[in-house]
């Protein structure tokens, strides 16, 4: 992160057949959009293990974008429905853990919808800007500070106390 100039970080999990291809199309069409999304290619959005979503947040993502084929269009028949179901539950779970639902977004983007990539990414960046940084790594450090302070004191005390024979 560049100092004093926070930019939302998005990890985007795109399915190979529709959304990833749409992002390629956006490129080929030279559409311009916000540079905040880091795309990770999956064969199907159905491969997206919720653990990866949580890991992305835990490792510093401000938002996670999932892109899959439109309902009925899944290259693997129904993978996107599985994604949708997990997504619905995961959003609730995140909400209950104090993470704004908007930080996790699921979009159906077909291979032809390069323009939609532009819209979705740009819109999501705006949403995240309004929400502000999630910065879980920072939050973890802050939470652990109470432990770290004590740890330092213990270490210091042990240094001063000669070890029993």
């Amino acid at each position: 992160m560049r100092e004093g100039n926070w930019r939302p970080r998005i990890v985007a999990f795109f399915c190979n057949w529709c959304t990833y291809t749409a992002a390629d199309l956006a490129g080929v069409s030279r559409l311009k959009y916000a540079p905040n999304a880091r795309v990770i290619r999956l064969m199907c959005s159905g491969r997206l293990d919720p653990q990866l979503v949580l890991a992305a947040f835990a490792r510093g993502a401000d938002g996670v974008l999932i892109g899959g084929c439109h309902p009925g269009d899944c290259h693997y028949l129904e993978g996107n429905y599985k994604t949708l179901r997990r997504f619905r539950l995961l959003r609730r779970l995140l909400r209950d853990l104090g993470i704004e639902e908007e930080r996790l977004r699921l979009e159906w983007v077909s291979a032809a919808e390069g323009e939609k990539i532009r819209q979705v990414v740009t819109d999501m960046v705006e949403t995240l800007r309004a929400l502000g940084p999630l910065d879980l790594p920072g939050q973890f450090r802050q939470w652990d500070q109470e432990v770290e302070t004590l740890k330092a004191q213990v270490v210091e005390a042990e240094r001063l106390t000669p070890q029993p024979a």
Partner: protein
Amino acid sequence: MNPTSKPKVAFYWCASCGGCEEAVVDLAEDILNVVEAVEIVFWPVAMDFKKQDLEAMPDRAIAAALVNGAIRTSEQEEMVRLLRRKSQCLISYGACAQLGGIPALANQFEREEILRYVYQEAPSVINNSGTYPQPATPHNGDTVTLPAFRNSVRALDQVVEVDYYIPGCPPTPALTKAALDALLAGRLPPRGTVLAPDVALCEQCPRLESKPKDLSLDAFQRPHRTALDPEKCLLAQGIPCMGPATRSGCEALCIKGNMACTGCFGPTSRVLDHGAKILSCFASALAPKEPQGIDQALAGLPDPVGTFYRYSLARSLLRRKRGPSQTQHFIRGNPP
């Protein structure tokens, strides 16, 4: 106490219900064998030891320290650090030490909320003077201190390094004995191992046969509102059973009691986040395809965090509820 040649063992109890201590006792006759084989040098719940006794020991003097309970206070931190220093092998005993356990569900709430509730708002409390526990209170010209109540509940290994884990709420006597036997025999697996089978519970489940191969759920059921078939896979009855995502080794005791697995053994070694995994499994098995139907089916899971992270919230990837920032004040609380 005269030093002996027997390996020295310590037990300690942090934020827990006491069930783990009970489990040790539950070893029944086997406890005698253990006592025979080891020298118990520290066990505050059962025997009279003081912190100074521990401090007086040379570092790594204890062969194995079994710690149960999660870490919530500065005192617990201090004690486990001390134990860590004095022990060759630190064993996390039970779900709370391993995963945060039930106490870690408190991580869904801000410390302040908890204190306010416990000392003021709970229906049974009358506290007109608004007295709250303070880390340090002047008393008769002296200062009386209390351990600091931490912002988060932590698993043991989030505070000190842990060598082995014995899972369970509580661990079964069989697992405990097997672990202690291995310890005494020096037959220990690589450090960091959970001393239970690394396979999900279904493998041991007596109802596995009854689970259909084409499970598709229209809804989740609340167990207390459902007449449960004592023979049939609970998940197949719409009961959120954590068995498929939970490490086995418990002998499926809950299932045998017609009760769904709640996940106390934690996930397998391949899983980073217990809750996320079972969430994925459950959600994938739903039948509806459109948001409304999906939400309806999921209405039977009113508390996803409490269900999926009943024992493992402290060890989850997100660790706790992200709350408002006024917690800052408490985090800076002085240690005793």
